[in-house]
């Protein structure tokens, strides 16, 4: 249960569970990064930062420092 988006390997899919810390950027929610949604790790830049995700069909990139605050549960 301590997995975060930053731990996902390329091609792995997980379900977003919750956010650590109170300061979740509203913009992230607006882009569809909400608990219950499926997230697939598409690719990462060198040093695993930033990370390129597919969240329910929305493709976005976030920094590693944000990724480690989003807890997920591996799917399947």
């Amino acid at each position: 249960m301590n997995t975060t988006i930053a731990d996902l390997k390329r091609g792995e899919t997980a379900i977003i569970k919750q956010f650590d810390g109170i300061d979740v950027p509203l913009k992230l929610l607006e882009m569809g990064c909400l608990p219950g949604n499926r997230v697939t790790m598409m690719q990462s830049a060198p040093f695993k930062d930033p990370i390129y995700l597919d969240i329910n069909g929305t493709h976005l990139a976030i920094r590693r420092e944000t990724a480690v605050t989003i807890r997920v549960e591996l799917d399947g």
Partner: protein
Amino acid sequence: MGKSINVSLIGNPNTGKTSLFNRLTGLNQQVGNYPGITVEKKEGICKLDRGLKAHILDLPGTYSLNTTSLDESIVVETLLNRNSKDFPDVAVVVSDIENLKRNLLVFTQIKDLEIPTILVINMADRMERKAISLDIDLMQQELNTTVVLVSARKNLGIQELKDAIANYKQLTSEPCVNASVIDTEYFDNLKKTYPNQSVYKLWLVITQDVNFGKLDRNRDIEDLKKHKFDIKSEADLKKMQHKETVVRYQFINGLLKKVLTVDTANAKDIRTRLDRVLLHKVWGYLIFFVILLVIFQAIYDWSTYPMDWIDGAFASMSSWANNTFPAGPLTDLLAEGIIPGLGGIVIFIPQIAFLFLFIAILEESGYMSRVVFLMDHIMKRFGLSGKSVVPLVSGTACAIPAVMATRNIEDWKERLITILVVPFTTCSARLPVYLIIISLVIPDERILGGAFNMQGLTLMLLYLLGFVAAIFSAWVLNIILPINRKSFFVMEMPSYKLPLFKNVAITVIEKTKSFVVGAGKIIMAISVVLWILASYGVGEEFNNAEAIVNEQYANQNLTVEEMDQKVASHELEYSFIGYIGKGIEPAVRPLGYDWKIGIAIVSSFAAREVFVGTLATIYSVESDGEEEQTIKKRMAAETNPILGGPLFNFASGISLLLFYAFAMQCMSTLAIVKRETNSWKWPAIQFFFMTAAAYFAALGAYQILK
């Protein structure tokens, strides 16, 4: 005159909103500014049926009406202010079939403002390929509005959209999501305080003011306080906004479950395959580098042809004016002030057009976001953001749009640093200075088996130098600026698209036009002032130049032409500008310049591109104006008055190149930085540090190389 209605185009970035705007208005559009701020305001006219005209406003792209940036705040302002002349009769929300869910968020918010809203689903031509099907009738019913499928790219559905706009009176303004469920008590209180107003509108006013700072409407907040309404703390409001987003997504998910089916088996697409290569840890960077290389080589090689032609055309125009009109001060002003001044503007057009062509293609294709992705980690180390790459790359066209393009950087420190270092990148105004000096001091030879031209390579090195200077100063600023970062970074990775010719063409035309008109005015004015300063003077030496020179060279048997030359030269030396130039000569001599270059540099502090025009004005005043000489030939013929030999040699050339690479010589950029940072402090710091760096770099280079 038919009736005209106001239409606002709203939507997420990357939905093809601008393509749709271009389809609806064609070239019948104009770009201005919102009053008091520098956000671009794009407006256009679209003819509907029965003499009805739509005045279309293309609002900045936004993911929601929750204000966190200036762009979003403009959208909210426009939609809240019923008294504004831009207030829409009908809002058109543009969404894209592949990102419908996310795009609908802002739609539900606008609908809740009780504004008649049409939903456009763009890129409908991709539905079949993506195996997407949509129940439009049910969707219209559920959303209580008209839904139009279009493809701006393939020009489909545009007429249907025009019809829907024309029939806007049939749309209801009923809301679709009840946002007040997030805190019933709060919204009930709001309703009680203002029984006649839409609660959702009040809610947006509150969140905008608290989160973004007051623009012009702090009256609303004051008013709420007067009514003893408890606005709640910023943290509580933020939590409520989170809840609101979740509630809206619940509604959207419910809706899409009913109307949308996607066959996910087809999902593996060109995006994945392209991203594998373009974002590859090695190939990705290599490809980016090669693209940059190609752009600079191409600009250098291709634009020389039209530029040589323009240069020659203006030179012959000057001599034609001189020969055709009766001699006198007006003819002189035309032939030596206005025409060379105009030439100094027109000569930029090929390069600016090429640069914007490449930038527009990279933006349109979706590749620019990949560059941001590749560069973010590296840029972060220097206190920048991956998003700083776009300003730094557009800075190669002009620092002004580049400074404005920093707006989507969320973190203030990263944004400020980007603004401060962007003017180091090689803007197009430096290009003419570089080009003319490179062609004078760098041999025109091919190296590496003829693959690269030395001059082109030098130009590329100068661009790299600009980037390195920008990155290095960012690194220093990141260490010394006492600002805490509160950074987060979210960026959409749009799908790849073939750039649409029409969009690229409109960008190139618009940007070039705004350069010619905007910068052109300054260049023109300075050219005329310079001509006056160079043509008039006071005192014996100026007024009796001919007599004095005749006496001086009486025994040397000079031809009439040589004599005229000497007289002109003597006059220039004792004109107003001569005195100014002589005054600064001690400061610029250690850099390898004479007083004429000194004047060109001083006048360049208004705008760099003035440099070539100034030299053109000074030299054509000096010459007798009869012979047709291009500015380049004139510069090559100049000799160093003290050391002898050509004035523009390798050492002084490199010194000049370095000076222009570093110096902050652009009033317009300083003005924009003042506006964007809201203080004179940052532009002042920028000006003194950059100019000091330029002086010492040029000094060092000349003293070592001479």
